[in-house]
């Protein structure tokens, strides 16, 4: 077990490095002089000199990458000229905002998707199942940001129950979380349903029924536990997509998270911010996948290590 975890965690290093390389290259491949891009719209000669000295633009590319990584390890992600702050400070401010939305979204997806999938599977073919499955394919097809706009129209503009944008209170979290969680709930319910259907047909479920256990015990104690495995994998993958989806939704709901900083950074050509946010978001996705893999190993008794 420990060895598996060790290899799995070590395998993150090349992927992490590759992500860093991609993010590093974004600045070099962007049209224009990277020094001027880093210096922002009003470059002073001193600033240009400082940037050149710090990142070594006259050096070969691999040396520049090495330098970038060594700055990174020391927690230096550069300086946002537009915001006049170090990028790490911006991350510290915006990460909790993004995390809050992501966790609320995934919580909602679990709370809706898993029961819906179980009910669909247990009553497979009934009208409940058909309704749930249609709702789920519709849920996957609706763009989250449009759903967000519709929720704003209904609950903020018309009913005036909830704020249309901003950040801070629980009320501010409700609409974006629903907009973010819907497609994941839809996906989860589909996976849950097919996994449950697969398990219900197994022999041990027939045995459980045959020995006279109550249907409720059969479903919730025996079947659900085994059917959860593929769901966990999808959940881990989904955590990544949640973070990515929050990039768009933060812009819809004007939440000051990493996604909003990322898009503003791109539009203002504030490249240190773009790099920092892309790096943080991609690394979080990587960690989420790692977490899902580890959970899977703990849940699945069939995986043995020697």
């Amino acid at each position: 077990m420990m060895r598996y975890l060790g290899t799995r965690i070590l395998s993150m290093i090349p992927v992490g490095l590759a992500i860093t390389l991609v993010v590093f290259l974004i600045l070099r491949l962007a049209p224009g002089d990277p020094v001027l891009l880093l210096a922002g719209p009003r470059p002073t000669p001193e600033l240009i000199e400082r940037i050149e000295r710090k990142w070594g633009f006259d050096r070969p590319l691999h040396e520049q990458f090495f330098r970038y990584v060594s700055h990174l390890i020391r927690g230096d992600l550069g300086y946002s000229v537009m915001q006049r702050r170090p990028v790490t400070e911006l991350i510290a401010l915006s990460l909790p905002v993004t995390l809050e939305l992501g966790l609320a979204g995934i919580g909602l997806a679990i709370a809706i998707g898993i029961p819906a999938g179980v009910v669909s599977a247990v009553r497979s073919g009934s009208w409940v199942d058909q309704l749930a499955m249609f709702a789920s394919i519709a849920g996957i097809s609706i763009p989250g940001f449009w759903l967000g706009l519709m929720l704003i129209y209904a609950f903020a503009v018309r009913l005036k129950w909830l704020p249309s944008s901003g950040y801070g209170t629980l009320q501010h979290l409700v609409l974006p979380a629903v907009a973010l969680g819907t497609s994941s709930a839809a996906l989860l319910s589909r996976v849950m349903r097919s996994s449950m259907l697969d398990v219900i047909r197994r022999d041990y479920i027939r045995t459980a029924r045959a020995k006279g256990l109550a249907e409720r015990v059969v479903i919730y104690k025996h079947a659900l536990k085994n059917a959860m495995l593929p769901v966990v994998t999808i959940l881990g993958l989904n955590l990544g997509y949640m973070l990515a989806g929050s990039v768009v939704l933060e812009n819809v709901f004007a939440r000051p998270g990493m996604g909003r900083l990322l898009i503003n950074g791109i539009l203002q050509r504030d490249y240190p911010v773009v790099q920092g946010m892309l790096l943080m978001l991609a690394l979080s996705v990587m960690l989420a996948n790692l977490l899902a893999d580890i959970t899977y190993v703990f849940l699945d008794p069939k995986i043995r290590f020697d």
Partner: protein
Amino acid sequence: MQETNSWYRRTLRYLKRRPSGTLGAGVVLVFMVVAIFAPYLAPYHYADQDVEAILAPPSPGHPLGTDELGRDLLSRLIWGSRVSFSVGLIAVGIGISVGLVLGTLGGYVGGLVDRLVVALIDIVWSFPTILLAIGLTAILRPGLRSAMVALGLVTWPQYARVVRGQVLSYKQREFVEAARSMGASNRRIILRHILPQVMSPIIVLATLGMAQAILVEAALSYLGLGVQPPMPSWGSMLERGRNYIYEAPLLTFAPGLSITLVVLGFNLMGDALRDVLDPYTSLR
């Protein structure tokens, strides 16, 4: 040809049995016709302004009303379908081309080449699609062409993975061995014997890929990174409509509904196709 024919018939028979797939195909077909004949169907050009009617409600002259510049909403929706379809088709085309070449290369050649292909797939795969697409448009400069290229370059691993797996498994089969023993070249074996077997899963992935590409393009355009004005994209129309959500909710409602319907159409169609063509990977 016999093979293709029975495959075609099987599909048709199945679509009849699964009405949701036929419904999806119907929706897609309607939007496709609209996109192709947009100049003839749209009552106005997408940039035509009617200064007499700014943010006007629906009327006989403007069936869905007008936007903040007095442009006809229905016409812009119709023209917008062109953007969605062309982005979808070209992005999926690029994705399939790259995926087919790299997947075949990795699966057929094996060894170090295969390891490199797999590593590349893993790296691109570890970025969520929209995030990488956003990063790429940042390099390429926001615009329609960047969105297409970025989407293609971001989605190829899903095709490459399947192609590689299929090529690996078919490479060992008897009919390939037989072809090889009769002196067929690698090129001929790949093109005539292996790739035709790979087509079914690719068709399924491409259908679902259209849905994905249209969704991501809309998101990019909403964020201002995709299609630039005055060309109408459903995503950028939503972004502008948001500012007038109180006075003219239709400006926000209609483009979003169009996106949802097209994407739903492709998803329904892809789901049904997967059950027919590719029963082994239909996990949902």
